């Protein structure tokens, strides 16, 4: 005795699979899981670690002429003459930590933690020492041949020019962390409490700029040009200003972080290398790169074994440069630090791995799209098929409908209909001249208003029918009353859909009737705008999707109708009599007695029909629905891998249809009635 199990378990249940099949399934799953990742395009780091010959923390890096210099704790100095690939030792500049550096033209200045500034005027010149006499200085900027600006705690700003120190400290006494100049006049200083100060006279006077976030501690600023100013806070915010002089600052809503205003990591340095490219550095091994002014920030992969705090960049241009960090780490890049898969390699699609790398997303999208229309198409098609089959087998004739009315009522109806019919005939005929037909040979020429013909034909039909109504006798014996209207309706439908090509139906329904658009508008009116994702977009966001479902469903319904009708005819008429004899209605007997048996009989041919529907769904490409075949075409357009693309598409179709066939086979087994029919088993 089979116990009834609910839902999907009737079709698939693990416990009902024999042990051999279980082993096959498990091995297949294992094989799928252990397929190695394609190596066509792996992501590797754009940074390479170079030997710095020191373990001291490196705090600052600066380009000076064709050389690049780095400075670190205990006066450590290293320089490179080949863009940072190899490094040379340089005698220490004092014993104090070197914490910041800057250069302008041929001048370079290094800030020491004890307030001493080491300067080099001219390339390959000697170091000169200038004592600022200050402590708690954090940032330095070179503003001219013999001038620098330094900023520090409690709002301290000092300007060195004409061999003299000037105190430019303003009333804003928050700690300042960084200062940056564009040329020798325009500068920015940033610090705690969102402080941004700007100068346009080389650092003599400073103005306060409104902070977009008064709680952030701005740690680094970059003045790229008068329209591109960027800063970062230690809480990961990116601040930017595009107004000349930096009057207005805003927090970047970072697209790659779902429009949050923080990168969710601590930042220590920003380096703007072109009008759109920005490099970020932070503690805990954070290196970031944005190609679009901070809208999208991608975290850079680090070389193996490197996980230090990064302090400063020095870039020759947007491609070549270095970044320095704690423990003497210097990373060198000659590809802008980008992870290597970002567009610097031309994929070779002849390599199957790389082709798959490119094609798998498209194939998956097409697969899902196909499954979507197939599932809905099958549901719709089966429903329509059952309804049509019931209409076709319905015994209701005009006589059944009309026999409860008196003869006079029927004649009255006939008279009323004949008036309508004659009016339609008259209107239709009077419109014939509008067709501007000049002879029978022009009958297919689409000029004028074809509705005239339609009204004429309809009128003729109604008059013919109403004449029979008028002539009706008491027994309703006229030929019209034997007509089964439901059957006729279904016959017209199935004949029409079975005798026209599916591809034409697709185009007629989508472009001619614009069914998808109409349904979409209807749904929009009811449920609102579908947006770009979510459940509402899934159902009515794509009008080709709606058209495809309906075309497939309507077409398949016409074919399934005949199959189901055949199965209904195969049920002995006694079953209907038995159902009716216990008082069930015709529809009740259909639903409870006939259809449950008929559907069981026609599962094999219906399965055929459903497989056909899957295969026919490929024609949805003609209306622009992006199902598997269309995706295949698009894949070829980019990769030219015709064999592989169509091969994969074909396999995908096979997966869908074969799964469907297996489900139906299983359904057939589980719904088989014991002791009924020749089944060759069970």
């Amino acid at each position, binding site marked *: 005795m089979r116990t009834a199990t609910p839902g999907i378990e009737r079709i698939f249940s693990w416990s009902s699979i024999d042990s051999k099949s279980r082993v096959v399934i498990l091995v297949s799953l294992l094989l799928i899981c252990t397929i190695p990742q394609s190596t066509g395009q792996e992501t590797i780091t754009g940074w390479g670690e170079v030997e710095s010959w020191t373990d001291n923390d490196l705090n600052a890096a600066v380009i000076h002429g064709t050389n690049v210099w780095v400075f670190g704790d205990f006066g450590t100095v290293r320089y490179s003459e080949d863009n940072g690939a190899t490094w040379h030792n340089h005698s220490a500049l004092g014993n104090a930590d070197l914490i910041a550096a800057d250069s302008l033209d041929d001048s370079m200045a290094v800030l020491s933690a004890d307030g001493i500034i080491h300067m080099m005027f001219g390339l390959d010149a000697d170091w000169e020492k200038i004592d600022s006499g200050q402590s708690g200085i954090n940032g330095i900027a070179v503003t001219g041949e013999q001038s620098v600006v330094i900023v520090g705690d409690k709002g301290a700003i000092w300007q060195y020019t004409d061999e003299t120190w000037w105190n430019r400290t303003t009333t804003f006494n928050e700690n300042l962390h960084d200062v940056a100049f564009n040329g020798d006049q325009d500068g920015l200083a940033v610090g705690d409490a969102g402080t941004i100060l700007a100068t346009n006279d080389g650092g003599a006077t400073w103005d306060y700029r409104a902070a977009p976030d008064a709680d952030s501690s701005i740690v680094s600023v970059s003045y790229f040009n008068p329209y591109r100013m960027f800063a970062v806070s230690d809480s990961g915010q990116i601040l930017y200003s595009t107004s000349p002089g930096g009057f207005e600052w805003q927090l970047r809503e970072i697209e790659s972080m779902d429009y949050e205003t923080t990168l969710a990591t601590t930042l220590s340095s920003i380096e703007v290398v072109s009008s759109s490219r920005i490099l970020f550095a932070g503690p805990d091994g954070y290196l970031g790169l944005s190609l679009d002014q901070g809208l999208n920030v991608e975290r850079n992969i680090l070389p193996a074994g490197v996980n230090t705090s990064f302090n400063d960049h020095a870039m020759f241009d947007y491609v070549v440069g270095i970044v320095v960090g704690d423990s003497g780490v210097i990373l060198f890049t000659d590809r802008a630090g980008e992870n290597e898969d970002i567009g610097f390699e031309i994929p070779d699609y002849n390599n199957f791995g790389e082709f798959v790398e490119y094609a798998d997303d498209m194939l998956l999208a097409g697969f899902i799209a196909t499954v979507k229309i197939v599932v809905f198409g099958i549901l719709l098609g089966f429903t329509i098929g059952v309804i049509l089959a019931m209409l076709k087998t319905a015994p209701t004739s005009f006589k059944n409908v009309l026999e409860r009315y008196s003869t006079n009522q029927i004649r009255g109806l006939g008279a009323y209909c004949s008036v309508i019919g004659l009016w339609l005939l008259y209107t239709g005929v009077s419109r014939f001249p509008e067709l501007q037909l000049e002879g029978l040979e022009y009958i297919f020429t689409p000029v004028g208003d074809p509705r005239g013909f339609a009204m004429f034909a309809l009128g003729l039909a109604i008059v013919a029918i109403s004449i029979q109504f008028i002539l009706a006798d008491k027994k309703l014996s006229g030929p019209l009353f034997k007509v089964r209207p439901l059957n006729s309706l279904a016959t017209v439908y199935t004949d029409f859909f079975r005798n026209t090509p599916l591809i034409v139906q697709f185009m007629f329904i989508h472009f001619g009737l614009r069914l998808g658009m109409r349904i979409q508008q209807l749904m929009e009116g009811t449920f609102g705008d579908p947006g770009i994702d979510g459940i509402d977009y899934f159902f009515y966001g794509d009008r080709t999707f709606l058209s495809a479902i309906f075309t497939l469903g309507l077409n398949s319904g016409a074919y399934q109708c005949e199959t189901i009708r055949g199965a209904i005819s195969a049920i002995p008429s*006694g079953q209907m009599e038995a159902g009716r004899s216990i008082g069930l209605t015709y529809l009740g007997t259909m639903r409870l007695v006939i259809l449950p048996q008929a559907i069981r009989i026609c599962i094999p041919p219906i399965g055929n029909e459903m497989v056909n529907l899957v295969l026919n769904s490929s024609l949805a490409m003609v209306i622009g629905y992006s199902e598997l075949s269309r995706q295949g075409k698009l894949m070829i357009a980019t990769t030219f891998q015709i064999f592989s693309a169509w091969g994969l598409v074909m396999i995908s179709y096979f997966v869908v249809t074969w799964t469907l066939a297996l489900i139906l086979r299983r359904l057939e087994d589980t719904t088989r009635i014991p002791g009924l029919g020749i089944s060759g088993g069970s």
Partner: protein
Amino acid sequence: MPEIVLSIRDLHKMYAGGVHAVRGVSFDVHEGESVAIIGSSGSGKSTVLRCINRLIEPTDGVIELRGEQINTPSADVNRVRSRIGMVFQSFELFAHLKVVDNVTLGLRHVRGMSKDEAEKVALEVLGRVDMLERVDAYPGNLSGGQKQRVAIARALAMMPEVILFDEPTSALDPELIGSVLQTIRGLADEGMTMVIVTHEINFARDVADRIVYLDHGQVAEEGPSSIINDPKTERLQKFLSSMHEDEVPEAIEKELVDGNTGYGYVPDGKGAGPRVR
């Protein structure tokens, strides 16, 4: 005289091909009475029976159930049918449903009972036809006699005012007939109103209170069951004598069942009924 349950007046049925199968049949069925309709093949017995619950629409005539005409377009045919049980020659059990579900289907979907209530009633009637041990079987796995008893239970469960039997035993093997006839006889003893179309002359004589003999679509003779022993009309006499020719003598039947092949026929449960040359 008990109340008249079913009254048939001047019933005519003309089939589409022009065959006039029933020509003015009239008879009454009283409360608690069992009426057997006998007659040769093609005499219109089954047509009359099917006209009663309108599986066939009569061409003319009046059929009344407890004084209310039921063959008008305005009569609720489904309600009428739920008051009249029907048992078919070929059982017509719903093959996709278990025995118990066959019986509960009408109770649940016509009478509107809950599943539990319906099953209670179903088990009760299945007990009456002695089918309790097969309630979870599918009809395909039952023998013919068991099927027919389930069909009787299905009709009984609806608490009909009258049950129509359309040759209930003629599709059964001889050794299976007994249990079905026993069941019907039990119903008659309980006072169920029944109309039985049958070939079993002996059974008609034993069970039926009244016999209606149809010939060529007309009632040729009608009377108490004694008319079988003592037919008044020549036509019935002829019919009965032809029936007796077909009947298997008791002694031979015993040998048939025991498997004596000397008679050219062994009842293996698949062939037609036994015939002796």
